[in-house]
């Protein structure tokens, strides 16, 4: 079982995602237009000892992976936790091509699956499984030759499948990540307690789940108490995100509170400035023990 680092570096800030302000989001998108600007921030984090980059399978990340592969000495300990898929790529494809068209769009053109989809006939269960695996492999292509010990499925997909009750797809993901990549499958969700129950019903024990965990209960769907119960039960390996609740909780107080929760193995955070990166790292070292 892979041990996760205490502190993981996230990527929302690089892609114009800001829950507070569209103006800030746009300013960030402009600042991180060049891959070099992203690398400069990642280098600060890496040199602070934060060696895990938890990132969306956005096209731009392929360029980051190129840089990391290209300098194995500099990035000897660098690792990615891919989060797949980049949802807007699929949403836009569905708008453009329709549901079946979008799936075909992402299948290898000459493959049997493209043919099966083109036929418009019902798909056998086995074919649905194969399509899911091909989609996963497509997302993983950019990481070939890098270290990816933990691989996440993005919350929009996890929660869509969870809500629909199509949790068998999560089981397919889980098996494929273990079998083909020798990695730990993991889940981002905005509904952690409900997801945990559903994964257990699929026979997935002690899953890694990344969800909002913060002192004020911000976006902890299913209820603050249900989250704390799940954490205390030892049934989940939690990664906490939104620990500052978009800035609503002072940093010291936020990290201190998280450090006293059982079941939280890691914190993922995003920052653009060296000061904020060092500040969070120092707090995690202070309250959660010095760890990579």
């Amino acid at each position, binding site marked *: 079982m892979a041990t996760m680092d205490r502190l993981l570096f996230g990527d929302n800030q690089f*892609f*114009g*995602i*800001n*829950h*507070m*302000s*569209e103006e800030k989001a746009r300013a960030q998108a402009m600042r991180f237009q060049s891959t070099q600007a992203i690398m400069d921030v990642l280098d600060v984090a890496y040199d602070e000892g934060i060696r895990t980059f938890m990132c969306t399978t956005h096209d731009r990340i392929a360029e980051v992976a190129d840089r990391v592969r290209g300098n194995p000495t500099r990035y000897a300990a660098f690792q990615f936790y891919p989060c797949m898929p980049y949802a*807007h790529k699929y*949403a*836009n494809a*569905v*708008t*453009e*091509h*329709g*549901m*079946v068209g979008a799936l075909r769009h992402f299948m290898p053109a000459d493959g049997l699956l493209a043919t099966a989809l083109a036929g*418009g006939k*019902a*798909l056998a*269960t086995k074919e*649905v499984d194969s399509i899911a695996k091909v989609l996963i492999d497509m997302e993983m292509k950019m990481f070939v030759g890098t270290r990816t010990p933990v691989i996440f499925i993005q919350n*929009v997909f996890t*929660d*869509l*499948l*969870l*809500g*629909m*009750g*199509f949790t*068998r*797809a999560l089981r397919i993901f889980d098996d494929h990540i273990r079998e083909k990549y020798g990695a730990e499958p993991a889940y981002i969700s*905005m*509904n952690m307690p*409900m997801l945990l129950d559903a994964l257990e019903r699929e026979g997935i024990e002690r899953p890694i789940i990344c969800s909002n965990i913060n002192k004020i*209960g*911000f*976006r*902890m*769907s*299913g*209820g603050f108490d249900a989250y704390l119960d799940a954490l205390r039960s030892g049934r989940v390996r939690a990664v906490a995100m939104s620990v500052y*609740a*978009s800035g*609503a909780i002072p940093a010291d107080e936020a990290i201190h509170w998280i450090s006293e929760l059982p079941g939280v193995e890691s914190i993922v955070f995003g920052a653009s400035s060296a000061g904020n990166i060092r500040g969070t790292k120092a707090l995690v070292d202070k309250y959660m023990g010095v760890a990579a």
Partner: protein
Amino acid sequence: MTDRIRIAVVGLGKMGLSHFAMVNAHPRVEAVGCDGAGFMVDVLSRNISVPIHRDYQTMIAKERLDAVVIATPSRLHAPMVTAALEQGLHVFCEKPFCLDWQDSERLTKVATDKGLVAQVGYHYRYVGAFQEMKRIVDSGALGRITHVLAEAYGPVVLRPKRGTWRTQKSEGGGCLYDYAAHPINLLNWFFGTPSRVSGSVLTPIYSEGIDDQVTATLGWDNGPTAQLSVNWSDESHRKMTTRITMIGTNGRLFADRQECQLFLRASDLALPGYQAGWNLRYTTDLTQDVWFYLRGEEYSAQLADFITAVAERRGAAAENDFASAAQTDRTMAMVIANAETGAPVGAPPLVAKPANGPRKRGWFARGA
């Protein structure tokens, strides 16, 4: 639990699947699915335990249902909603409501007469920042609102292509129905149906025979003039962005999905907690947690309201009822008629006398 209500989600496309997931996850609901396309029905019926139907008419006739959520292409809304109301079912319909506003008004009456919960999916009315904007407008603290800018931009049609129903006129596609409907619906919420629409231009950029860009001028009796500026061929936005700006005699107000910014010339007793100068409220602070989060609290919250109204037999929607959506359909019809003929639609708005000195409530509002 035996008292769970049964809701069928009809049309399992992009919106429909998301509605289906949220409805199915709701503790007070037993969900049913329905979609005409074989592919989706096959995949789902092999993989989830919920019954999935292919034929809408058969389903509403045979399934024991309390309500339907209609998320089919817009052209199908009117006939499907009609059939559901005839069966005595409560209805949540995706926006736009009906392509012909006369259908919208007829169905509004049917639903009201039958005491059915009838709601349309204009989710921006459930965004905290826009709810705050509504509260501020209703308080009167902005003074006389004279000037409004209503915008929406996003990356839907970025090249010529065959497209889906969203880009076909006959199916109720196009930027006006798909995108502009949202800022128009917000304007209806704040000010009602405009008395006059002029200067409307519906412009294709990449699409054939349908608009990718919408501009228009809307006016209200004794109310503001609003410029509508909408474009769904704008790749600089990661996803749809809607924003409203207003200028009144006592300040300026702006809102988008994230935040609500208010500049007040003078504070107003009708709006406690806001001071002269700039005030900022974030959606994150204005938003209540939801039972299940998929893609933004507003999507969950609108369905939660619908489900609660049905389960507790309230007989009407809490927000976004058919009558309010009919206003939006009517407004869009005015934009289309204006764009086709070039002649303004509706009478010139009555103009209030210019503000002279403090307004009535101003005596109480000036101090702080």
